[in-house]
């Protein structure tokens, strides 16, 4: 169950996407999502879908990992599709029963919405699978640099550091939860049956140790950082500097071309 959480998971495959500058990836991701949502006909959306497929193949990450991602948001996709289908009343009537009327426009919109949400998830997945959590926060910190001029210097760094730590500890926390759950199960704890109150109560033997160990971990981490003379972002240099390479430029040009095409298709049809 907990193993299905893929958020913040880095999958090393050494593809060209993995090697790209995380800042480039982040900007291009936002650009891709904006244009995917702007696409309002089958041609432009189809183009974006084809492009996404190419990116997925380039990432060299098994298809099953992407499917796992889609599976978790399936309920959301279904929910929005049904709402869209029920709500839109224009277009040819396909089906009518009691107060429910399904029209061709509604179905069309539902399909569009599902495809767009899936594309949003899949493109974000490419980004998070191909970038280490550190790279992601470094990219954010670097992109927010302009804010430094507003005197927000330490705030930007603190935020980025907090995020790095949070992302870094997601897998640790999951592992810890699993361990504690197993340990309490070994003492006969039953977490899968009973009513709501019983189930909430059954969580206590897990939540209390988890909380205690998190606090302990936080203290340990703070101490370890202090021992290594951490004192905020000022004057801190990096071991691995992010570099904007020729490949990043090529990728950016490619994205601009594809997105312009989809814009043209939007206007033409």
């Amino acid at each position, binding site marked *: 169950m907990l193993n299905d959480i893929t958020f913040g998971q880095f999958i090393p495959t050494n593809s060209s996407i993995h090697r790209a500058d995380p800042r480039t990836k982040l900007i291009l991701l936002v650009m891709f999502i904006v244009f995917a949502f702007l696409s309002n006909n089958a041609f432009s959306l189809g183009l974006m879908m084809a492009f996404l497929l190419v990116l997925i193949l380039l990432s060299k*990450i*098994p298809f*099953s990992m992407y499917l796992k991602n889609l599976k978790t948001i399936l309920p959301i996709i279904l929910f929005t599709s049904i709402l869209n289908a029920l709500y839109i009343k224009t277009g040819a009537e396909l089906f009518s029963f009691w107060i429910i009327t399904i029209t061709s426009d509604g179905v069309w919109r539902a399909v569009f919405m599902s495809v767009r949400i899936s594309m949003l998830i899949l493109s974000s997945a490419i980004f998070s699978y191909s970038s280490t959590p550190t790279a992601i926060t470094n990219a954010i910190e670097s992109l927010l640099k302009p804010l430094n001029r507003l005197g927000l210097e330490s705030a930007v760094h603190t935020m980025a550091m907090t995020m790095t730590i949070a992302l870094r500890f997601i897998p640790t926390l999951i592992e810890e939860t699993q361990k504690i759950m*197993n340990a309490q199960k070994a*003492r*006969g704890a039953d977490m899968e049956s009973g009513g709501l109150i019983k189930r909430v109560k059954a969580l206590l033997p897990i939540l209390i140790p988890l909380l205690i*160990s998190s606090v302990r971990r936080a203290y340990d981490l703070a101490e370890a950082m202090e021992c290594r003379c951490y004192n905020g972002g000022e004057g801190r240099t990096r071991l691995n500097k992010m570099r904007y390479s020729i490949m990043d430029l090529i990728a950016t040009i490619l994205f601009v071309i594809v997105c312009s095409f989809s814009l043209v298709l939007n206007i033409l049809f």
Partner: protein
Amino acid sequence: MSLLKVSHLSYTYGHGTPFSYDAITDINFEIEQGEIVGIIGHTGSGKSTLVQHLNGLIKPSEGNIFLDGKDIWENPKKISQIRFQVGLVFQYPEYQLFEETVYKDIAFGPTNMGLSHSEIDNRVIGAAEMVGLHRNLLQKSPFDLSGGEKRRAAIAGVMAMQPKIIVLDEPTAGLDPAGRDIILSRIKQYRDTTGSTVIIVSHSMEDMAKTAERILVMNKGKVEMFDTVGNVFSHAELLESIGLNIPQVTQIALRLKDLGINVDNNIYTVEQMKNSLLKLMGRGQKNA
């Protein structure tokens, strides 16, 4: 028929993902009622994975586990019953303490078994005594105990379920020598008074030499050896080749033999060394 039989057991973590990893492969062994068995192996050799199979926390990818001749996964719905029969004490068990008092925490297992109040009370007091926790400590918060006491409280929490087999994953990790000796001697005493079977996972050869009767050596997810303590320690080179050491006294004994001093063959505790040396010295005096 042996009490516990593991047959062709294999387990793969993350089956079907890019991270899939064969933690253990084709494990076979049998353990009799009342034995103390040690499991040793290098870090990552699959010891913890193996012991989590014994009480059904992990379902085997392949193979079976028989308890009293019955496959524990015969009826998956009844797997929680198996957990009361095979008690598992995890690595660093003190991190699972959660109740307001030590008493309540030890009572967690027996309560889940649905026992009566008086029976729970008996078991909690009995288990606390078994691990040598003073009665005064029972009403304290578990978080106010010392490290060694916490560890013993957590072990008592599993002993209180009175399992047929108790499995302890590195029960002495991170304790000082005195704390280690207390825990090991209490575990041995537990076996002697209840006749239960004990399985101990450990890195420490000294611990194993002191407590275990038979040792199962794991290497890269496979069983390398399963034999009496003496026989296992006689394969010093094999053990070293898989990153394990024989106890220090055994190393000294081997060196002494090389130097022509005729100490006994199977020496693996300080006690045995002492006796052997005294014997030698006694003889020397007579010859003089």
